[in-house]
């Protein structure tokens, strides 16, 4: 419909004659053959969301730091250098007199009344273990736990939500099951699960892997209910929309109905749940470690570091501040990414 308008000037400028206008009009239609992959549109829209880009950059930075960090910072997270114990972080130099700050940064070993060192820029703990190294390896565990637990919760929650919403026969059963999980008191449940399964899993998979599986499972299994409820509600509403009826009149079977029509349309709430889920999982893991229920004490995670740091909050606040800052940063950046992604995935918002 817009063709004549577009092609009229090009036809006029090309030769001035009427005859070349027809092939000119024909050519672009043929050339514009394959539609562009819509993920490019998603990316284009995502790029316009400044918060999301910032969040993505921040999150990637954290990921790169914890993944590549051990290659650059070769100190072992569990190496005990007892003589360097209780070293302050380098930022503590700012606490000195004005004149002494620069010399403290340049030559920390000679700083008056302050134990700082470039060998341990974030300081050491009460046993002389390097906090930067512990932050890096703790970040690996925390992020891995956060993302796997979120993925687990999301898969379970979305699966149950879609099944309950789409298949009326399963609805009552699955939703009562969800209510059952919602009604369980979380902390006592976690205590019981961890007490019961910690040792067998450790024996089966090794101390670190066993507890990783346990924590991921525990967090995943206790946080899928919100997603399930939200998804079910949305599916129930979507199921009555005419395009689902239209797909049925075409003969689309149920499984493809779900994957093609239902799931893309419940993407927004799932996205939101997912980003909140990562945040929640990291925080729950921190809380578990904080309570002493998570990973063993010689196995650093951000939550564990936070827990260990609280005893020294008065003298060495940095031991609490650094893990706290990184947890918050990771959570915040993921939330922004989720926000941007949700907008980008909705074609109605795209391009505005």
């Amino acid at each position, binding site marked *: *419909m*817009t*063709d004549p308008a577009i092609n009229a000037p090009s036809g006029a400028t090309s030769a001035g004659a009427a005859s070349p206008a027809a092939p000119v009009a024909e050519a672009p*239609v043929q050339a*514009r*053959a*394959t*539609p*562009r992959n*819509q993920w490019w549109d998603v990316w284009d829209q995502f790029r316009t969301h400044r918060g999301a880009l910032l969040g993505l950059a921040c999150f990637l930075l954290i990921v790169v730091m914890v993944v590549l960090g051990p290659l650059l910072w070769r100190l072992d997270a569990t190496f005990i250098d007892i003589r360097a114990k209780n070293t302050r972080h380098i930022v503590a130099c700012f606490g000195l007199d004005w004149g002494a700050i620069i010399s403290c940064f340049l030559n920390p070993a000679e700083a008056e009344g302050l134990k700082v060192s470039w060998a341990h820029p974030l300081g050491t703990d009460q046993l002389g273990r390097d906090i930067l190294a512990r932050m890096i390896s703790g970040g690996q565990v925390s992020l891995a736990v956060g993302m796997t637990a979120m993925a687990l919760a999301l898969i379970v929650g979305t699966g149950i939500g879609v099944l309950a919403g789409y298949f009326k026969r399963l609805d009552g059963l699955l939703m009562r099951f969800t209510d059952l999980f919602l009604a369980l008191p979380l902390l006592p449940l976690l205590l019981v699960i961890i007490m019961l399964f910690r040792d067998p899993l450790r024996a089966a998979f090794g101390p670190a892997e066993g507890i990783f599986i346990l924590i991921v499972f525990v967090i995943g299994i206790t946080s899928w209910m919100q997603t399930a409820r939200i998804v079910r509600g949305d599916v129930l509403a979507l199921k009555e*929309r*005419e*395009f689902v*009826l*239209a*797909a*049925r*009149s*075409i*003969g*689309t*079977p149920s499984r*493809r109905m779900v994957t*093609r*029509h239902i799931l*893309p*349309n419940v*993407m927004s709430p799932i996205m939101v749940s997912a980003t909140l889920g990562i945040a929640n999982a990291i925080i729950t893991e921190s809380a578990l470690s904080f309570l002493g229920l998570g990973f063993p004490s010689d196995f650093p995670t951000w939550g564990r570091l936070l827990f260990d740091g609280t005893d020294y909050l008065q003298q060495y606040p940095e031991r609490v501040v650094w893990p706290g800052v990184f947890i918050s940063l990771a959570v915040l950046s993921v939330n922004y990414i989720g926000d941007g992604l949700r907008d980008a995935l*909705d*074609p*109605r918002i795209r391009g505005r």
Partner: protein
Amino acid sequence: MLDAAPAKKLVEVDNLKMHFPIQGGILRRQIGAVKAVDGVTFDIFEGETLGLVGESGCGKSTCGRAILRLYELTDGVVKIDGSNIADASTEELRRLRPAMQMVFQDPQASLNPRMTVAAIVGEPLMEHSTMSKADRLARVYELMDAVGLNRDFANRYPHEFSGGQRQRIGIARALALNPKFIVCDEPIAALDVSIQAQVVNLLEDLQEKLGLTYLFISHDLSMVRHIADRVAVMYLGKIVELAPRDALYSGPLHPYTEALLSAVPEPDPSLEAKVERIILQGDVPSPANPPKGCNFSTRCPKVMDICHEIEPEFDEVQPWRFTACHLYKETTNQTASQKAASTEAHKSAQLGEPK
């Protein structure tokens, strides 16, 4: 067309019933049923357009959807091209789907907002053919040409189109599998008048080109008069009259049809003054609790005692003209002669009425 050798029956609907259960009480047991479609019988011949008219809530759309078995039928037989779809299994039904398609009322709601036009129009092809991606795209372009959509729009989303264009997308989707039979469920109700004409003309052109058969559901009597070959009038889940278009519009038999037609505005002001409007009293009874006897007996201006007692049969009272009304039953059991006289009187009165 009707005088010619009888064309092949493409769609045969026999005693179609679609009841929706009403649940109530603590145990959510079924305490009744909304009889949305309650025993409908008609045939559609190959290449014709059957108009299905009636007021809101009389079961037109439900009937259309039930014929394509988008609902599980309560009772009845629906044969499309010889195969009974009322009791076909899911797999059989899926194989039969390409022959019958549907154009929906609300073009906005019937298109998935997250799919591009190419994906929407290509979906039936994806489900029912093993075309390669390139072939499918070529076919999508062909269909877009057929319904008058610019090929450049293939990669756009439904919200970027106007109502008329969206309806064209819906029509293109319905055409994708070369169906024989299309149910048009008020395809023009959500469009404004200038676009209505475009879409109806498009439907007519396509019918001519592709030899389609339509069930055209509408409440717009003048549009049905324009497009349909035969017209069925529905009231409260039942067909009260089925007749060739011209015969129906010039001399309706059933009192409800008469009342319905009298509501069509007359464009000529000099004639408008002369038109005698039949205004029905009262409301449509609830389809959950239809009246005893004839469904229309509560509002019929020509109601008789028998109407409250016995449900009229849906019979061919004149060649090609079916109606369900006691006015035309000469062979009902009691007081036959008396009734026959009154019927004759009515008939002559009606036929004499200038229209």
